[in-house]
């Protein structure tokens, strides 16, 4: 589904990402790990056409993403607060996003109902503006909005950070569920090796912009990763 060909991103000669060839087939759950500055967010931004590649390209379904909009209708993403519209209430925001993907009010209500456990009763129907919510709840709103459009491709940057333990477990359940029932392609980056190995079938380790490990998740994966990152 996704193909990165000779993808390079450099800022003033300093290369921050250099991926010679990476294919992510449809329905794969793809985990991206790496220390700060490894290029995880840069890679996601390139896939979402938020920054311009210095060289090479990203293709989704065989089409170049750069300056192209055909991938937008089936892609859900949440990288950071820039993806939220913070002066709306959560419901206004969900309505807005839902409309963009041609969802009816009924669809949206049904979806929010299914997320009620994840929201822990604090988000749906609240009159607070998004900017007044805590970081954890903002993250929940962003993830929900990304899922709202029934995406075939889901891109989440560190979805587990700032969430409380119960919400982390619920999110894991939601993600595995979506893989099984909808065969959704997922790209998830995380600093939490436990979570990411549980959710993803394939783990790629980035270091200084290069792919250094590409493993199919098995029983020893967690140990392998832990020993890799051990100092």
């Amino acid at each position, binding site marked *: 589904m996704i193909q990165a060909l000779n993808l390079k991103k450099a800022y003033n000669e300093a290369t921050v990402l250099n991926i010679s060839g990476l294919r992510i087939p449809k329905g794969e759950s793809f985990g991206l790990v790496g220390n700060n500055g490894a290029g995880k967010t840069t890679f996601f931004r390139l896939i*979402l*056409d*938020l*920054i*311009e590649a210095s060289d090479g390209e990203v293709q989704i379904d065989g089409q170049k993403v750069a*300056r192209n*909009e055909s991938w*937008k*209708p089936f*892609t859900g*993403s949440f*990288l*950071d*607060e*820039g*993806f*939220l*519209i*913070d*002066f*709306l*209430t959560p419901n*206004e925001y969900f309505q*807005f*996003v839902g*409309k*963009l*993907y041609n969802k009816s009010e009924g669809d949206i209500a049904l979806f929010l109902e299914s997320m009620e456990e994840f929201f822990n009763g604090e988000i749906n129907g609240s*009159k*607070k*503006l998004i*900017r*007044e919510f805590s970081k954890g709840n903002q993250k929940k709103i962003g993830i929900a909005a990304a899922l709202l*459009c029934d995406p075939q491709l889901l891109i989440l940057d560190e979805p587990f950070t700032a969430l409380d333990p119960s919400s982390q477990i619920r999110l894991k359940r939601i993600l595995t569920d979506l893989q099984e029932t909808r065969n959704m392609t997922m790209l998830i980056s995380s600093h939490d090796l436990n979570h990411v190995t549980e959710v993803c079938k394939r783990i790629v380790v980035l270091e200084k912009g290069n792919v250094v490990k590409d493993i199919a998740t098995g029983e020893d994966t967690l140990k392998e990763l832990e020993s890799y990152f051990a100092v």
Partner: protein
Amino acid sequence: MILFDLAKHEWLKGIRSSGFYKNVTMRIFTSIFSLYIGGLLLFMGFSLNKVLEEVPGGTPMELFNGAMLYLLLTSLALRFVMQQLSTVNLSSYQVLPLKRSILINFLLLKPLVSMANYVMLLVIVPFAIRSVAGYYSGAVALRFVIAFELMVWSNSLLASFLKRRFGSGFLSFIVVLVAIAAIFLLEYLHLFSLFAISKALFGFVVINTAGLLVPVVMVIATFLLNKWFFAQNFYPERFNRKLQTSRTATTDLSFLNRFGIIGELIALQIKLMLRHKRTRTLLFVSAMFLLYGLLFYTNNHYGDGMVFFCSMFMTGILMFIYGQWSISWDSAHFDSILTKNIPTRTYILSNYYLMLAFNIICFVLTTPYFFFGTKIIYMHLTAFLFNTGCNIIFLLFFATFNNKRVDLSRSSAMNYQGTTYKSFLIVLPIMLFPILWVNLLAWLTSLTIALGSLAAMGLIGLIFRKPLLDLCVKQFNSRKYVIAEGFREVE
């Protein structure tokens, strides 16, 4: 003295904020602008005597005294909108063993240091030298200046009290405006003269040695009023309403649903404007600019170019203010705009239609000026056509050069955050070109041809809006990475 430490912290906060050094060009522009305004005020101070001498009803000083209460009332209304409540980060000091009264005194006295309170001295001092010392004595002139400054202080204190007590909602602003308008009307109808009261009161204050006590008492009274307010409201959350907003957001813009995604985006922009203080203040300010015509149309001294400039300014004020930053308003959620299912063309179109709606609103609101004659009607029509046909496209195209994040969470008027020299470069040509064009053509041929040609340009812009908008879309697409990157940089 602990007060000095606090003052030092404030000073450090100012010069260590990351924006301080970055924006040198902006600083130069604003300094030139302030020098210009300062010069104008000084000139006004020196020439005021001559103007007032020709007015019957007393010496220049007596006339000025008569207007004093009006001045104070108007500046109170202005302060109500513009003056920012001074805040120290109270909670970070509250936990330290600092006396509360010291913090409050600091909070109250800090705004008195602000330049805005002393700008008017540029007018008052020359006026006092020429008109007061000239007619009375040096001592009276000195008292005049001191009394004026004391009144400014008490006005500033009163404004912050009113603002803390009643909030700076739109409603309170309207109430103040209506009250002032009512007093003006009563004066005009000779039913009640604030002018006479003001003249007698300030005459007493300035002429008598003991008169100075009146403004002194006023300053103390307003200061104590503020102290009383803080005594009543002990905890920051009680008076700092921002801390507990959760205002129920019930803006019903569902009528825009019919227009599909464009309607949704326009509704989003309207909510954006209504829910941020900075944008709300801009809306008030533009409402005030709609009165500009009273200044220009009533006076025959202005050339056609200036009068047309005024028409263009009024019929397009919302468009100018919004359009200058038309993409930058979305900086905080720009990534959302780019990744959600919003075609670029739809996004640009939503901006276009919003500005079109603004122009229609302003045009309708300024129709009362049609009473000033057919010339004004033609000017407004031309201005509307030119603004809609050419200026919207121009603004949309050049807005893509603004890649500085506009931070709406930081509030209020006179907030130039996110303004760069580019903002000036964008607005200057659209402001200057029509004046020059009208003046030139009216001088070479006739006003009809000057206006007609501008209207024709507007019509051409309207007819070819599709290819022109395509051009804007193309421009947006080629600039979007640069814009997005700039918007991600939080200052």
